[in-house]
């Protein structure tokens, strides 16, 4: 069982308390009506599936209840870092 660091509880908690919530940093367009079909399809369905580092959302559902972001290695399952929702991906400039 993996331990995942919840950036709100600020502690390592067992993975069973968490739910994955898909890719991180996918912004809902502020005015969906103006998006093209292709853009909307991209927003809905098109996701990176890298071998290696991925940014994804998790929710501490059986804990504090918060959604947060994580950088995880899809090969080793190592969580490099977790950070609060709304914060930029570490290593990128906002």
């Amino acid at each position: 069982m993996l331990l995942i660091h919840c950036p709100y509880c600020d502690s390592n908690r067992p993975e069973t308390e968490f739910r994955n919530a898909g890719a991180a940093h996918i912004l809902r367009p502020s005015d969906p009506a103006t998006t093209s079909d292709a853009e909307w399809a991209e927003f809905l369905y098109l996701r990176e599936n890298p071998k290696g580092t991925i940014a994804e959302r998790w929710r501490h559902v059986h804990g504090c209840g918060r959604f947060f972001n994580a950088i995880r290695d899809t090969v080793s399952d190592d969580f490099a870092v977790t950070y609060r929702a709304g914060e930029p991906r570490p290593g990128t400039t906002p």
Partner: protein
Amino acid sequence: MSMLRTPSGGRIDRTRALRFTFDGRLMQGHQGDTLASALIANGVHLMGRSFKYHRPRGPISAGAEEPNALVTVTRSGRSTPNLRATQIELYEGLAALSQNRWPALDFDIGAINGLISPFLGAGFYYKTFMGPKALGSNWAWTKIYEPVIRAAAGLGRAPEGPDLDRYANRFAHCDVLVIGGGDAGLTAALEASADGKASVILCDEQAEFGGWLLNSDGAWLGETLATLASRPNVRMLRRTQAFGYFAQNFVALQERLTDHLADLPEGTPRERLWQVRAGEVILATGAIERPLAFPDNDRPGIMLAGAAETYATRYGVRPGTRAAIFTACDSAYGAALALKAAGVEIAAIVDIRLKPDPALAAQALEAGIAVHSGTVITGTTGGKRVSHITIGKLQPDASVRGADQLACDFVAMSGGWVPSVHLFSQSRGKLRWDETLNAYVPNITAPGQKQRSVGACAGAFSAEMRGAFNGATPVPGDPAKVKAFVDFQNDVTARDIRLATREGMHSVEHVKRFTTTGMATDQGKTSNMNALGIVSEALGKSLPEVGLTTFRQPYTPVTFGLFAGQARGDLFDPVRKTPIHNWAVAQGAAFEDVGQWKRAHYFPQKGEDIHAATNRECRLVRGTVGIFDASTLGKIELVGPDAAEFLERVYVNNWKNLGVGRCRYGILLNEAGFVIDDGVIARLAPDRFHITTTTGGAARVFAMFEDYLQTEWPDLKVWQTSITEQYAVIAVQGPKARAVLAPLVEGINLASEAFPHMAIREGRICGVETRLFRVSFSGELGFEVNVPASQGRAVWEAIHAEAIKQGGGAYGTEAMHVLRAEKGFIIVGQETDGTMTPDDVGLGWAIGKAKTDFIGKRGLMRPDLMAAGRKQLVGLQTLDPKVVPEEGAQITAEANPAPGTAALGHVTSSYWSETCGRSIALAVIANGRARVGEVLHIPMPGGAIAVTVVAPVFYDPKGERLNG
């Protein structure tokens, strides 16, 4: 006492004799024996038959690595197969059975497999079963191989009844976990716990701590154990196998609690699973001796030298009276001396090395033991027990000459020692080939696994462990003509492995799968190095170039009970019951599972089946009044000044114009535009809403709302709280609904003008605070009474009493489904499947057309979702009104469509409607609304069912009955 017992010494209690049986034969051993040591003391080495050839086999080890001596232990209704006799602690009355033999261990008909063994060589799974082509591809398999192999091959029998035992689970955390309680592990535990602060768990798979130290009488062991036991920060777990090492220093331990006891204590778990998270793991798992692969090296009586020494010194039993020692390692000289001291005659030490250590050789000679250097065993004889060996001298050209025969009744062999790196490898640590040790040793620790290996498992061998040999020992003549076993449990010989490489298996992973070497329940603990040695020689590659197969969890086989733990029977999954559940039980209701919930399905009266009960319950609702437990519905209280704004953004409907005290049927989509939930939403105050969701969607909808509130619109001032379990919900439906509630309700005017359809009022019922909805999922005048859950049963009973007075009664989920289908009300997840839009299911009217955005609005604008020809909700009437089609059945234009014809749609709901006096069905059909009046077909195995497409409302199309 047995002739084979030493007069004194060892860890057994000679004052405590224990009786046990093996295949029904009564024998005697001592407290402190294993089954293996006790059998050996009774002169029994033949403990099993091999997997494939049914060759007679005895134990080669004295521990967890044992490949041969697998037995079944039975006791008081229990039967546990495939236990290693070398690990089973003897107790009074133990009953063990040999396995994989028929009719008896001594006379086994399956040994004929040995005679046809040329057909069962490497890759036989893949090749032999092909058979002669002329007889068809399957002939050989079905006619010969399968019946023979199924009857003859295999391990013990799986028990048939439920597991009678209890299994415990414990999550534990410690600063240091020490695995292995031998010299190195005990030393590490002493150091780690010395400060009195660090919490330390020390585990060892044996009945006693000490490992190799148990073979001698040192004072250090006793003192050390006493010191550790006196430290409150140390937890010592005996009989505890660390079997899995996972990421982030998470280690699974199997603690055996009762298997060694003669009397099973009532209620006590048999085993305990420890799931340990350790700050640091110290591996002190020692080393395993490797066998030598020489011709006919598998006869009972041929065992590892260290094991022979252990039997003699720890268990006080001589494995025989006259031993031959065959070795590539110095430690066998010590074993020879220990056996000699225990009263065993030593026929000779046969050392494959040209120049054994002169001091050791001198020591042996001094003790009267002949040493043959540069010599190998070239064969053995003996039926159920080895009786002779032949030896030959290695020649400078690597050939072997000579055939001297030596008599012996057991052989102690040593190919040297292999660090036990299994757990290190499981932790994803990287190994390194050590040329000196001729073995792999731990090298690089995986990230996040704070750990170290100490002692022999780290390759820190003592001086006497010097010397090792990998591969098959040289033989005179053709090596393909001899059976030199490498993997004893899976019956893989050196010849099989060479054959595999000749047939093109050049990767060790391929060789493993082709020959099955290392794939038995022992995972090749004693065979891997020899297999690698043979592959290396056959391919002309160095051993590290050949590579190594992966070690996997579990280290030794683990019971299923341990994994199941407490999650069995009623505790497998939470069973959720409503506050009214026990009333329904008392009424004899039949229940159905809806997720984790138990829901009353119907309430059969005397002699009624589901159909009769459901028909009667539907008549109650349509004729007088029915009451229904709707407590499982998801419920959310949404509060804050932006509550209406939030609803506006997530549901398709308009919410800002919903008056206080009014309800609206809400439809929830995902961003793609598909219906995912629905429910009635009531406005209790300008800033407070009571939302209902489907039973199954409650948690999902709550999570979705939380997601949007936390991450998309954190600026909105609105918060949600789950109130699903705060309220019991009692639906009261039917023309007499108002009459039922009237005597019970205070502070609410039930009159239609004061309390219209789709309204909510707060007041009291039976003196209890209630949120009373006027809603209907049946098409009749209806109310839903929400009361605090603790009052649900009492209020239900009061309402039920009133309903009885009105000629009504309770109804269950089956009647609820029929009633709503008669009205064409959808069930999300039944009429929808995640690809239906509101318009597809006839709910386009609910969408707030003027809204600029809501979840799913943009999705609905996608071309495919607006295209013509989408599947639409319709009603179906069978031409024969008595026929009720199956839900899920496909619908076609033709009664007998050509194969490959795509269906137009499928039946989503189908019932006998007592109200309509005929069957009714809902379906989704391409372009369905334009097809009303058409006759379509439902092809079924017994012939197609003709149906007419109709509007999806079968009863009261104008909705007049809602007014009561």
